[in-house]
């Protein structure tokens, strides 16, 4: 029950007034793996490099599990009516890269961000120290229990698939005369370009629709300066299929570090943009043990 002890410790240390809804928290504390399959394994595949192919053979061999997703109601702001109740997940690895293929039903594809529209997202979370006896909190880690969070965003997928957005992509009839970054050098125009001018990592996808991040508790999510994760998302017939792939080990102290035959734990978070889910308004899962075959 070590992961649950740290879980409770993380709530106290966060110092946030906790609104516990009904018996939800009790249920979570006393069920070890609610809704998760005990035999989740990443099947070995003989390939090189990141595993990005939806049609690869490994996905036929991998055993899918169903991960129960809980509406986030522990810390404010909450989302008691989070839309997605479960994810179907498969895992594969090739001794160098680990990949997770995550699928869920979503009738609306949400990747256009304006003030009242949010994007679909999914994230996988690993404890950075797989050998530690005490698991960090599955809710984004806790002080002393860092996690590596790889987050795929539909808006980033759109950037990759369709190119850098212009205002007319959002508002076809928009008219403008000139932007500061069109007439000034970068150093002079950056102060007038908001988050883009300071290279905020959430403003644009760079080479990958997956953001490689760490966290040690609520409100601490930080993008790593070195990006290693990759992935791709496809929406078809009301269903998202997303691959998130990451090296088993990198030189960064803030990445997971696994050998080819180790085991670790993985947790998930998912956002239905069409249901106004963003940030802490999401569905999340408990830790699921993951073995590498």
């Amino acid at each position: 029950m070590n992961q649950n002890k740290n879980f409770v410790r993380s709530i106290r240390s966060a110092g946030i007034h906790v609104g516990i809804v009904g018996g939800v928290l009790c249920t979570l504390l006393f069920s070890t793996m609610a809704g998760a399959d005990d035999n989740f394994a990443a099947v070995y595949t003989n390939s090189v490099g990141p595993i990005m192919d939806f049609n690869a053979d490994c996905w036929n061999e991998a055993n899918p599990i169903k991960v129960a997703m809980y509406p986030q109601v522990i810390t404010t702001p909450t989302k008691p009516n989070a839309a997605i109740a479960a994810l179907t997940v498969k895992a594969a690895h090739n001794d160098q890269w680990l990949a997770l293929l995550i699928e869920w039903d979503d009738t609306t594809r949400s990747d256009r961000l304006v003030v009242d529209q949010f994007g679909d997202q999914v994230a996988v979370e690993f404890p950075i120290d797989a050998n530690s006896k005490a698991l960090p909190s599955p809710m984004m880690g806790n002080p002393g229990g860092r996690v590596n969070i790889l987050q795929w965003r539909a808006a980033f997928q759109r950037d990759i698939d369709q190119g850098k957005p212009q205002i007319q992509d959002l508002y076809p009839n928009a008219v403008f005369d000139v932007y500061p970054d069109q007439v000034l050098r970068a150093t002079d125009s950056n102060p007038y370009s908001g988050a883009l001018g300071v290279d905020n990592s959430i403003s644009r996808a760079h080479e990958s629709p997956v953001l490689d991040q760490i966290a040690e508790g609520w409100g601490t999510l930080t993008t790593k300066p070195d990006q290693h994760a990759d992935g791709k998302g496809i929406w078809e017939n009301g269903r998202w299929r997303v691959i998130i792939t990451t090296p088993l080990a990198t030189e960064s102290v803030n990445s997971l570090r696994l050998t080819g035959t180790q085991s670790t734990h993985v947790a998930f978070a998912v956002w239905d943009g069409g249901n106004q889910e963003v940030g802490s308004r999401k569905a999340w899962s408990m830790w699921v043990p993951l073995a590498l075959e």
Partner: protein
Amino acid sequence: MPQVYNWQIGRTMEYPYEGKRPDKQFAMILDINKCIACQTCTIACKTTWTSGRGQEYMLWNNVETKPYGYYPLGWDVNILNKLGVQEVGGDVYKGKTLFESAPTGERILGYLPEDMDYAHPNIGEDDSVGDMAQGAFIQMPHMQWMHYLPRICNHCTYPACLGSCSRQSIYKRPEDGIVLLDQTRCRGYRECVRGCPYKKTFFNSMTRASEKCIGCYPAVENNRQTQCTITCIGKVRMQGFLAAPGQIREDNPLDYLVHIAKVAKPLYPQFGLEPNTYYIPPIHVPPAYLVQMFGSGVAAAIATYRQAKGDQKLLGALLLFGATPEILYSFQVRGNWAMGYNEKGGEVVRVPLREPIFVRSGYDEKLQTYRSNTT
């Protein structure tokens, strides 16, 4: 949750963080009686700060008409409706603030505007209340009324945006109380857009983070008043610093107008954020309407303002509006003159209380012609 003292509602209240007042608080006073909605302030702000990608729709400063105008649509009536009827009156607010009214699972009572709510910033402009019958003529009090409401971010003492952010991406500067949204830390969750009742944080669809009025801090740091203040052709505004409630100085024009003369009133103090933009109420609007917006002191404020001609100090303070681009830390009225001083006490500007009058004859001897009186 911590308890903080809000002088505008005369009591302590709940706020997510410990209250610590800044050394001096960025504040602005706007004389609604002088505003003509020329929108020069709006354009000044837009050309200075919001001409970038995704900022096209943003009006960090806007001027709307009351009662039928809003930007974004219905911002005040929506949140007032959500808050419900509350008792506004007396020195102590007996109703609930927005944080005290937070629904379960939320940090604050708020709502997220729709995209289209920003599409018509001039809705209701110049729409007045009341019918004009055939043959009507101007009467006192005005049978029809409307007034303009120029607005910026209020740089609240207890900001809703700051309290709403689940990542602490918004901070309040200890040196001057200006509230800023960290562009490296924001991830575009828009909790601040939900939380701010004045709707003065804006989501940027192109950068995918949110933005807000920055209080022209590069100017203010150099003792220059904000762009919206110094470009105002009607000399409607004065921007300076307010002292903490226990440390007000009679010779600080803002402290004087807000705390001593009490002609300048905060905007919707019942939200409980202690906003730092103050308004001199429009004298031709029925006080019964203004109470909801500015609190129960409006009638007294209007009465004082009407007597300004006979109150040298009040008149001098008001005449220093728009007199200089420099921030005035203190002022003095002596004889026919009002003087404004900078932080070091040096005289920055001197304004006559009564302009000298020259009477000229109808016939100009030098040019051999009659002077005409057309303008």
